[in-house]
């Protein structure tokens, strides 16, 4: 099959992946198996004589086939979408083209979706057949297919983001966990037993609403996360993700305001709660990313900020520049926003709200602060962050086991208080009520939150803030270099001829090492 006269307007990755994907063995075999199964069961059903039987058989086959292909095969194809690019060094060649990492991801995502849509089109005759033979509701079936396709597109996006992780083990494990999380938290928890799997009208409507509300930001964030992994070090994807956090917060605020001011009832609350749950997860994800990120040594990433003068610089240093120094105040800001929103709309009890907001910044920043002690070694910054998280987890689990066995032993008080910020919630809950770690968030933390926050969170935050402020002279030097080039290079178009180089000499030295904190 040849797809040669393709339009220039298509994303090059879409063109490439369609050319490749439609010829790949995986797609061909999957497609043929699905079609053969459909034909086989139709013939079998027709041979059985009863139209009701035929309809039921087709329903089963259709359901299993579509779910298998769209919710398992396509996401798995996405999970391994970049394996070859990583292993055979093709990524460097892509990085040198004019394609941005976002285009790469978007093209890949679109090509997988298009392959899914092509398969869906071939399934339409069987749906129509069911209408004529089994007497089924054609509109409902088409709606189910459309929703499955939409959910599949979301899953493909998530899996593509995870496909950009270097480690194959991490990639596979996180894919499985994410799919389980998405299906469970996204469908089972909010909609209960009348979930989408039963194809009830209310379930389908809820699913459609959920996809409409959660889908776009989650998909955008996933693709952005993947793009950040694929992009050359010189590209800044951190700032975009932080804008997304602010946008999510704004949407949540609007949703609650709408709910409170215009609707007295609680009809839309499950959806809003679901959005809040997802938004909180996404926000924490972005904050962790930002905290683990090294500051950019590339002056051109500062150009968009220095164009705005002093205001731009301050905004950059405080919340928007790439890397942990600006992530520290940004995390504080986000925690403050959460707290304010929670207070205004009574989203939780004051104790829970304060515990969550007091915990969030140190929980996010503690691994980075603790990781600075490992700075002299050759461990990469992200790996260092992960290492501290793993160490904290092991410490927490060990203490949980000890406290479950020993009950309320006074000897455990100090280790629990000195545990890393997110861990002591579980530990303290278990200390007072052995086995109660599963109900950690139902515990009342009014006093405990502030005592433990003072013990661990405050030093962590102070240390992080001090280190961040100490990094500002480095920012200033990069801003200065960026400002120089802003004046020289007002704009750059992809199709314009290459502008003349700046009349400055190649600088004698340009130290690019990130700053070790105090």
């Amino acid at each position, binding site marked *: 099959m040849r797809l040669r006269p393709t339009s220039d307007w298509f994303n090059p990755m879409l063109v490439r992946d369609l050319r490749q994907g439609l010829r790949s063995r995986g797609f061909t075999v999957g497609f043929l198996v699905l079609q053969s199964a459909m034909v086989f069961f139709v013939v079998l059903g027709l041979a059985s004589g009863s139209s009701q039987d035929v309809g039921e058989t087709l329903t089963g086959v259709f359901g299993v086939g579509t779910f298998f292909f769209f919710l398992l095969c396509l996401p798995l194809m996405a999970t391994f979408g970049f394996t070859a690019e990583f292993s055979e060094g093709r990524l460097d060649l892509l990085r*040198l083209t004019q394609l941005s990492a976002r285009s790469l991801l978007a093209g890949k995502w679109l090509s997988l979706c298009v392959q899914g849509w092509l398969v869906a089109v071939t399934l339409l005759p069987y749906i129509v057949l069911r209408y004529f033979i089994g007497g089924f509701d054609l509109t409902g079936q088409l709606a189910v297919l459309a929703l499955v396709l939409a959910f599949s597109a979301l899953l493909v996006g998530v899996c593509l983001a995870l496909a950009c992780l270097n480690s194959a083990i991490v990639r596979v494990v996180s894919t499985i966990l994410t799919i389980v999380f998405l299906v469970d938290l996204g469908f089972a928890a909010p909609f209960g037993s009348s979930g989408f799997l039963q194809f009830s009208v209310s379930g389908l409507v809820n699913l459609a609403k959920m996809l409409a509300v959660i889908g776009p930001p989650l998909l955008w964030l996933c693709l952005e996360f993947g793009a950040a992994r694929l992009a050359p070090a010189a590209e800044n994807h951190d700032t975009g993700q932080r804008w997304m956090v602010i946008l999510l917060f704004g949407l949540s605020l609007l949703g609650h305001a709408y709910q409170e001011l215009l609707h007295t009832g609680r009809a839309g609350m499950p959806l809003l709660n679901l959005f809040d749950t997802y938004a909180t997860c996404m926000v924490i994800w972005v904050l962790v990313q930002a905290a683990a990120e090294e500051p950019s040594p590339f002056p051109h990433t500062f150009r968009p900020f220095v164009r705005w003068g002093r205001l731009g610089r301050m905004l950059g240093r405080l919340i928007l520049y790439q890397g942990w120094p600006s992530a520290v105040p940004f995390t504080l800001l986000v925690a403050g926003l959460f707290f304010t929103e929670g207070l205004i709309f009574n989203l939780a009890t004051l104790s829970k709200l304060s515990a969550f907001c007091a915990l969030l910044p140190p929980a996010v920043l503690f691994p980075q602060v603790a990781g600075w002690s490992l700075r002299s070694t050759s461990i990469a910054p992200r790996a260092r962050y992960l290492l501290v998280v793993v160490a904290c987890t092991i410490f927490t689990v060990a203490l949980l086991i000890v406290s479950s066995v020993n009950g309320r032993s006074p000897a455990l008080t100090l280790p629990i208080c000195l545990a890393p910020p997110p861990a002591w919630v579980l530990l303290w809950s278990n200390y007072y009520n052995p086995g109660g770690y599963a109900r950690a968030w139902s515990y009342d933390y009014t006093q405990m939150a502030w005592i433990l926050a003072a013990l661990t969170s405050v030093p962590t935050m102070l240390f992080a803030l001090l280190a961040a402020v100490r990094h500002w002279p480095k920012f200033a030097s990069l801003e200065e270099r960026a400002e120089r080039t802003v004046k020289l290079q007002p704009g750059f178009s992809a199709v314009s001829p290459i502008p003349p180089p700046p009349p400055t000499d190649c600088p004698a030295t340009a130290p690019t090492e990130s700053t070790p904190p105090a």
Partner: protein
Amino acid sequence: MPAAPIIEVRDLYRSFGTVEAVRGLSFRIEPGQVVGFIGANGAGKTTTMRILATLDQPTRGSACVAGYDVLEHPRHVRRILGWMPDHFTAYPNMDVWEYLDFFARANGLKGAVRRERLRYIMEFTELTPLANRPSVKLSKGQNQRLCLARTLLSDPAILILDEPAAGLDPKARLEFKNLVRILASQGKSLFISSHILSELAEMCDSLLFIDRGHIVHHGSADSLRYDERAVMSVLVRVAGPVEALMKWCSYQTGVKVREEVRQGVVLELASRGEEALRDLLRQLVMDGLPVVEFQRQQQRLEEAFIGILRQQAIGGEPPVNVPPLLPADLPAAPPPLD
């Protein structure tokens, strides 16, 4: 006023953990030059090239391509630079034309311009007959030509080729060399790394030798072949028996027989310079020896390279910066004496 360098590297450092791959590298390449980059495995060639191609970032120091700092203007650098990696794998389930078409699109070429560029590049690299062949089923030589074609799609002014001739058979190597010559004649600047010194010498205007992250020599191939510091060798052939010549040599001071060849010997001279050669030839003729061939022997590049490394080893740490030589500064190679 000298032209601005097309590549300028100053005091470049790159560390991977505790390993310093590049240590204080400095050199400059003038526009239109073809420069060979030579060094043993792990000397820092690929790291330097990757930094220039904006695929890696230096720990310290600076690198500019066409006046653009690779850290400050990576997008500009990528637009004017073509990079050909040492290892290259095409995409499965795609033919040669589709592969190049993808990269042409990815480089922002559209419509008729893209089609024309593809046609030209495929003809230039002689890939037109292979247009419909699966890109993963090409021979090594064809694969290299495909990679070069991909590099040339965006018409870069500077080409960085990392070990382009590695693993090629002699015919493919010759074809590749011809392509490089044509590109050089088109005014493109080429920066080529290779282990095959003799081949680089034929293609390059100057050679950069790198060892343990330092530049240890920057000059033309001829300046290495006719290194004044090296021992001078001369091939002398005579008509008739060679014994007379051998006997004559045994009476001479400052002349040593290095090797006996057919109808002659290779002599090593204690003194250096053209005067010593002139005096030796005059003496041979005056003593009545029937000399039919008298030729100064070139030093083999590999030997010269090993010699440089040995010199660095004896002298301890190599110098951090060897001042780069401009073409005008290069010593002119003496013509062979016949």
